[in-house]
């Protein structure tokens, strides 16, 4: 049996949602990420989306791998179970959890290292299977938690103090498209206006919903030519060659209209060119989405918005034709064939 939530009485002033929950009810523990980290913006967008959708907080299961991004499930929905698994393997753990109980909402949070490097295989295969989930890749092009190495989504030619990235980058959105994701979107951590509705749509979607979210790492600026950061500090850190002193950074925000392009300067001075899909764009044609993506990419633009959706998608439970009752609720009564059937079984082996 499941419990119906009884929100405690609260000062009428505080805004509540359809279920009577306040924004607070969707928050988690305090973030330990760097001030200004894009991932924190995403967490608050998630909190906002869940609040607006009036989801029962405890009906969500949060799963992640390892990384700064993968820590974030701890910073939201404190009333729901979370599972910070191992690096790059969240998709399989989420798949198993989903099979065990089809009634919960599954939120998979990952990073670009977690999903595009070590986890590429699992990412691809869970998408192929059509797991009913929201899969978020908090994409900053670097390994944050291990201090700034390139990830597989880093642009070709991007520079770090010691190296230039020569591998061709993985476009998670393009990949999700050809792998058969039935909901494919991209957004920017600092663009709540776009992000919150996308997250809500993703939760509503029944099937593999993938959102690639560009989420600047304010710490490991892979651009040594960086002019933006305070010179004295830069010099200091260079001299002692380590990230000794970390400047407090502000969250990087973006607010631009659908159909327009905006350029965002990151703390390291590197430029990001975001182009928001036009309201007229029809997200039901996969081939077109792919072409559009590549065309804009050629122009150096990062397309954001809902690129593709299959309205009547089917999920893995549908394919496996599993019973409606969550498998984890079945007992020996429903599961064990019993001794009579076993006797008959024995006969077949004589």
């Amino acid at each position, binding site marked *: 049996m499941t419990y119906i939530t009884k929100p405690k009485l609260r000062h009428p002033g505080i805004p509540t949602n359809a279920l009577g929950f306040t924004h607070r009810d969707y928050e988690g523990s305090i973030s330990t990420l760097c001030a200004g980290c894009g991932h924190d913006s995403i967490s608050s967008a998630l909190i906002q989306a869940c609040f607006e959708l009036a989801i029962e907080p405890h009906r969500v299961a949060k799963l992640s791998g390892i990384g700064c991004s993968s820590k974030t499930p701890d910073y939201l929905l404190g009333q729901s*179970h979370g599972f910070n698994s191992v690096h790059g393997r969240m998709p399989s753990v989420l798949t198993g959890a989903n099979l065990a*109980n089809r009634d919960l909402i599954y939120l998979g949070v990952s990073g670009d290292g977690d999903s595009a490097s070590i986890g590429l295989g*699992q990412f691809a295969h869970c998408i192929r299977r059509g797991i009913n989930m929201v899969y978020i890749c908090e994409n900053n092009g670097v390994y944050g938690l291990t201090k700034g190495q390139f990830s597989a989504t880093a642009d070709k030619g991007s520079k770090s103090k010691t190296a230039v990235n020569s591998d061709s980058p993985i476009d998670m959105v393009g990949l999700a498209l050809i792998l058969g994701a039935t909901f494919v979107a991209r957004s920017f951590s600092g663009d709540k206006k776009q992000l919150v509705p996308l997250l809500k749509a993703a939760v509503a979607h029944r099937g593999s919903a993938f959102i690639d979210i560009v989420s600047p790492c304010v710490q490991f600026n892979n651009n040594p030519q960086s002019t933006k950061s305070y010179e004295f500090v830069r010099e200091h850190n260079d001299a002692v060659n380590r990230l000794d002193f970390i400047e407090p950074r502000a969250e990087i925000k973006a607010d631009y209209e659908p159909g327009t392009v905006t350029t965002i300067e990151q703390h390291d001075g590197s430029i990001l060119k975001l182009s928001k899909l036009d309201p007229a764009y029809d997200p039901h044609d996969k081939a077109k989405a792919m072409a559009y993506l590549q065309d804009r990419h050629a122009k150096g633009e990062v397309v954001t918005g809902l690129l593709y959706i299959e309205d009547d998608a089917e999920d893995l439970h549908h394919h496996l034709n599993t019973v409606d009752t969550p498998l984890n609720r079945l007992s*020996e009564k429903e599961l064990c*064939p019993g001794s009579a059937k076993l006797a008959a*079984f024995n006969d077949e082996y004589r």
Partner: protein
Amino acid sequence: MPSPITATNDFVVKFANVNGSGSASANELFAKCILRSGVPVASRNIFPSNIQGLPTWYEVRVSGEGWLGRRGGVDLMVAMNPQTWDKDVASIDPGGYLLHDSTKPLPPSKFREDVNAIPIPLTDICNRTYSDPRQRQLFKNVMYVGALASLLGIAPVVVEEAIAAQFEGKEKLIGANVQAFRLGYDYAAEHLAGACGLNVVKSDEVGDRIFIGGNDAAALGCVYGGATVAAWYPITPSTSLAEAFGAHCRKFRVDPETKKNKFAIVQAEDEIAAIGMVIGAGWNGARAFTATSGPGISLMQEFFGLAYFAEIPAVVFDIQRGGPSTGMPTRTQQSDILIAAYASHGDTKHILLFPKDPRESFEFAAEAFDLAERLQTPIFVMMDLDIGMNDWLVEPLTWDDSRVYDRGKIMTAEELEAGKTFGRYLDVDGDAIPYRTLPGTHPSKGAYFTRGTSRDRFAKYSEEGPVYVDNMQRLLRKIETAKTLVPKPLRRDAREKTKFGALFYGSTTVAMEEALAALEENGLHLDTLRVRAFPFAEEVVEFIHAHEQVFIVEQNRDAQLQKLLVNECAIDPARFISILHYDGTPITARFITNAIAERMTLARKEAAE
């Protein structure tokens, strides 16, 4: 010139074939005929890691006394594979028999003086009878079964019934096969009367026993044990376990009304994903398992460590094969004991079960799910290719309908509502097993964050030394609790008091029992203990301390179980004498008997002097 071997209900027939030639079903038919005559058989497949055209052998040990281990040696060779002729002929015991296709005559050099050839123009007969080349090949097999029936004195009706059963519902096939069988039978009756001193005499030694493979039985154990989620990746010799689970589920687990499935099986992209899915499902309260073999066990290491440390139920079937690396993928071994027991980096200990045969595989499979949820940790069911992929004659499977699943310590919404304190890693009952909650249980109580990093008793992240140590020590205590829950070892004392003991486990059991009888006949007495699980129960330590010398019989190179014993029970290795067999073939009673007899007589002599 040894005289031709004569034996009744006690001999070994070996078939040498090419895989994909249709021999497998014919050879199995032969084994079934012996069983239907009430005489026990032990059959073993020796097959290559390939699909078509390579040598494959099928060994049938006929044993009225009911010995089910491999005996070794060959009394009658059915040599159907020219590629391996020389080797096959060489392997026959002196005085034994060689049944061969005499259509193309072979030079005398190809035969042995001390072996009795039984020539049958199989190809000839086939070509005369059938026009289609495929039928010619197919029926050649049934034909030699016919000849064998006549040579060994198996009643035609027995064979005909067996054929009817094998092709049940396919009248056309039955007729055709019976005809082919007859051709072989009649030819032998006419031309080869008395050519073979081996014979089968009807008996009732088989009783109501069943003839089943371990993977098949273990898969059924998973159905009875309540497994609902299976995630796997194909690998010999475990593949047939996962596939059998699917078959059994389609039979037993489809809701009659809705036609919907009370199970979910996913063929994962690899073993890492397979175990990840199992852990995800276990975390979320479903009974889940995976089946794999050595290479998969290596790949799953990181996840095993997570399941151990985060305390998540999981069941893993390791159908062991010849290692290391890809090793001998179609041969048997018991060589994953150490990597399973200490799986993953850091300090860990895991639970292992050692079923001795298909029947116990069924039981331990079901049991494993109770243990996994009770102990909240991975349970390894350590089978091997010999048990998993060969059909064994075992007592019928049984189930107690009053049995309820032990779901372990799961705190319910009611309990949380009632204000019971919940600490995910809090040892409330003193058995070192904490309570867990399932996702979605309660709106405002019992939610926690699962992680592979160190945390306190309330699942809060912590890098504090004492907090970490506290948890690690509880995990050790949990293993102590496990010792009281896992299947107990089985002791069998010798007729006479003795200072010698022997330990063994798993598929070695059948050969061991036979060896013990043989040793006893020679006046060599040993008490024995069959180990059925790790961590080791007190009885194991007591048994060892109760004997001056303890033989440990294993099917691996490095005496892996012995290492575990020495490590975990703090026993002086000097007490142990290891008997190791690891060439990939199932261990035989002969091997064990000789090895133990040698050492025991030596010890006696020394004592005498």
